[in-house]
């Protein structure tokens, strides 16, 4: 029973571990499919939002069923598709932080929520995450491969988190999820304030 907690703590560690954000400055040593695959893991705002969503879906399991991760993936592919069509979302990162704050707060509150809220939040996080993941690659083929990696990476991270969090049923595990949710919300609120001021 310790394994799920260890995985969650590891995820928190990854959230806390800042690294260069590929979409924003270049992801040293990782380009193409691998770069795209690792991209969601090493951009703090992305992993924060995905971790919050994963916690919330797991917390609401089995009420929400499997539809929310599917909506998330479809929306993310739509966001990446919009990028491929040259769409530019300048406020995507701030929006993602706002979503992370809201979702973290919902995790901390731990109230039963209707499935429609899950669809809405899953779709919003997926779409904005896709829009905030423009590849650095100039050749078109390499850009598509990078985006494919991003889609796969972001999907796998969420699904792995949901698999872990939906198995956390003990009281102390549920409490731990609420505390992590409050940490995510607090971090997102502060990050958003700092980004807006600077």
């Amino acid at each position, binding site marked *: 029973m310790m394994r799920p907690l260890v995985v969650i703590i590891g995820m928190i560690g990854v959230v806390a571990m*800042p690294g260069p*954000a590929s979409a924003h400055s270049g992801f040293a040593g990782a380009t193409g499919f691998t770069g795209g695959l690792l991209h969601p893991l090493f951009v703090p705002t992305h992993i924060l939002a995905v971790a919050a969503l994963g916690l919330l879906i797991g917390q609401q399991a089995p009420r929400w069923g499997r539809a929310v991760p599917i909506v998330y993936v479809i929306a993310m592919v739509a966001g990446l598709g919009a990028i491929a069509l040259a769409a530019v979302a300048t406020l995507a990162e701030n929006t993602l932080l706002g979503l992370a704050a809201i979702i973290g707060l919902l995790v901390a509150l731990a109230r039963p929520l209707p499935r429609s809220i899950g669809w809405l939040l899953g779709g919003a996080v997926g779409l904005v995450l896709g829009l905030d993941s423009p590849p650095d690659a100039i050749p078109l083929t390499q850009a598509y491969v990078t985006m494919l990696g991003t889609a796969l990476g972001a999907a796998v991270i969420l699904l792995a988190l949901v698999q872990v969090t939906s198995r956390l049923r003990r009281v102390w595990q549920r409490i731990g999820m609420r505390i992590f949710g409050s940490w995510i919300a607090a971090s997102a609120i502060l990050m958003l304030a700092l980004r807006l001021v600077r």
Partner: protein
Amino acid sequence: MLACLAAATPAWAHSGGASGGLVAGLAHPLFGPDHVAAMVAVGLWGAFLGAPAIFILPVVFPLVMAAGGVLGILGVPLPGVEIGIAISAAILGMMVVLAAKPPLWLAAIMVGAFAVFHGHAHGVELPPGADAAAYSAGFVISTGLLHLAGIAFGLLARWPAGRFAVRAAGGAIAIAGLMFLGQLA
């Protein structure tokens, strides 16, 4: 997790500041003894109060602290921040000494009110050039871990000798809080 934290590097994509980042965020609450005393006291008191306070207080604190942090970042003045922080250590320590068990809502309001002062201080003292993401995550995690340390120690209160030790720790925090207050006078 510790390995991840130790491997932290500045997140250049977001600001490029070598002076800030995760280490600065993690260290910030730890280098203020008044902060440390109050954070540990929150955990001790939560453990003393038992469920659900044992987890509600550590959930309330970072959320309200973030609101206070936003006020500090935005430059909204808050009078008596340092006094508020010192008083928070003194009063929370006293709650532990007295093994006070007020209604949960009152305990949450008290802790939340003190969290505003702590958050404001963190927001104002943000080092120039600090990476926003890493710094914020760092000081939220550091604050949360101090709460957990307090809770872990507070769980000793299940045994008579442990109960004495926890109340003594509360007494030490209360005295430290009064000393911080005396230094400000």
